């Protein structure tokens, strides 16, 4: 299902980055996608189930949660962080600024696990 992805701050993501990015709190706050009830029904998923987001430059598994800030139709919101940044549009359009908002992505329900922060960063293959 092709949807529009917005990324950005939530107060819980802010609390988590200042508490510790190696804590479960960070996963709970940033490895999630805020989705409307209607979209979840359409996808046949419930809050707490995992979804896979795929974009031209990467993919990521996050947990679906019911949004409390009503979103435009066909839009999901993923708090800023290393999970969201797997699927944002890196293009800077010669402005130095990548595109962190309004990105077309594909989402599907998945049984794959959400990776914790250190495991997620290993995807990049630093040795």
């Amino acid at each position, binding site marked *: 299902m092709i949807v529009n992805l917005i990324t950005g701050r939530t107060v819980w993501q802010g609390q988590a980055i200042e*508490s510790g990015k190696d804590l479960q709190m960070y996963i709970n706050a940033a490895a999630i996608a805020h989705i409307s009830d209607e979209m979840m029904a359409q996808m046949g998923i419930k809050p707490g189930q995992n979804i896979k987001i795929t974009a031209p430059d990467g993919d990521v598994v996050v947990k679906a949660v019911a949004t409390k*800030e009503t979103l435009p139709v066909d839009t999901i919101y993923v708090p*800023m962080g290393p999970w969201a940044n797997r699927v944002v549009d890196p293009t800077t359009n010669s402005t130095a*600024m990548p595109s962190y908002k309004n990105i077309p992505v594909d989402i599907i329900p998945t049984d794959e696990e959400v990776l914790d922060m250190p495991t997620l960063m290993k995807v990049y293959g*630093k040795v």
Partner: protein
Amino acid sequence: MELVNNVVCPFCGTLCDDIICKVENDEIVGTYNACIIGHSKFVHTEGAMRYKKPLLRKNGEFVEISYEEAIDKAAQILVDAKRPLMYGWSCTECSAQEVGMELAEEVRAVVDNTASVCHGPSLLAVHDTGYPVCTLGEVKNRADVVVYWGCNPFHAHPRHLSRHSYARGFFRERGRADRTIIVVDPRKSDTSKLADIHLQLDYNNDYELVDAMRAALKGHEILYEEVAGIPRDDIVGAVEALKKAQFGILFFGMGITHSLGKHRNIDTAIMMVQELNQFAKWTLIPMRGHYNVNGFNQVCTWESGYPFCVDFATGTPRYNPGETGSNDLLQNKEADAMMVIASDPGAHFPQNALHTMAEIPVIAIEPHRTPTTEMANLIIPPAIVGMEAEGTAYRMDGVPLRMKKVVESDLLSDKEILEKILEKAQELKASK
């Protein structure tokens, strides 16, 4: 228990200056007045890793080394690199940033800060169109129309609303009741729920909406029934509210800088504010994120003439965002070494920039375990400014405030670490 008063919070650009820290055995154990994010920064959370010794990556594992070895290694990496990138700077104080600029010039690096991924487009727009800014004190005491465009302070700057928009001011005795709050956001954000007027525009249509508002402001008829998904009458009604202000303020954030059009959205928004001054006093303030992101842009400008993305490769500062931005250099695989200080690009840069960070030597001057330290070859832990080290920071409106040292630390400050790396880099270059 000791109470330390009037502490400035080292989280966001609101720089709340009324925090009270509870200190026991030289450790901050609690706070009064801070928001949940600021409180989380001041107080250590059980289980979170705080680095106390420098670490060097060897065969995929980190091993402890001395500060002296870490400084030598960092200087060597920067001096050996052909195209070093020095990024971050927004969570440290201005005198550390000043030393950083000298180091960048010495090793002929590109120096850039987190504005690259937040208000960089605003800086580009300020070059084009100007900067009709005021202070947050003026907002509190004078503003009767407050616009939050593409920002959600309820979440990102949690005390911004209570300190400046809901607070009683000299000419706004009833506080919130004396003000009209307008929010422009495609989401029904928690901030929009507090607004008198919510313009729920279609995403990526900020430019079109500002354009229609400017047309209405100039007395032209809006030719379409709706623009950016907003009915014509609602746009005209909002413009009338802006015109009737005695003192208006436009706060704007990532919703407009990250969306299609980027700096061109800000160009036209600034021009709207300028045009509104034909009807009322109007000003703007960008909602800066990191507490001293503004400070770096100030320091960088007075040292080099440019606010960010400054390239010292030729020995003379050169400025070309889009080529000399951190993401441009990393994604184009141009940077061959990176020093990160007081920020976390590992968490906040897109995947294609991180692929390069995985391939090149990365120095992280960072107190905690973060996605950036997972990508680092060398970690140098500093004392945390605003808690364990003092210094100056610039609030989002450009007012400098002094950050306090609340507790002692055995760790070197950012400034001390940078001074030592600079000294070593000078030595290495002299011996070449």
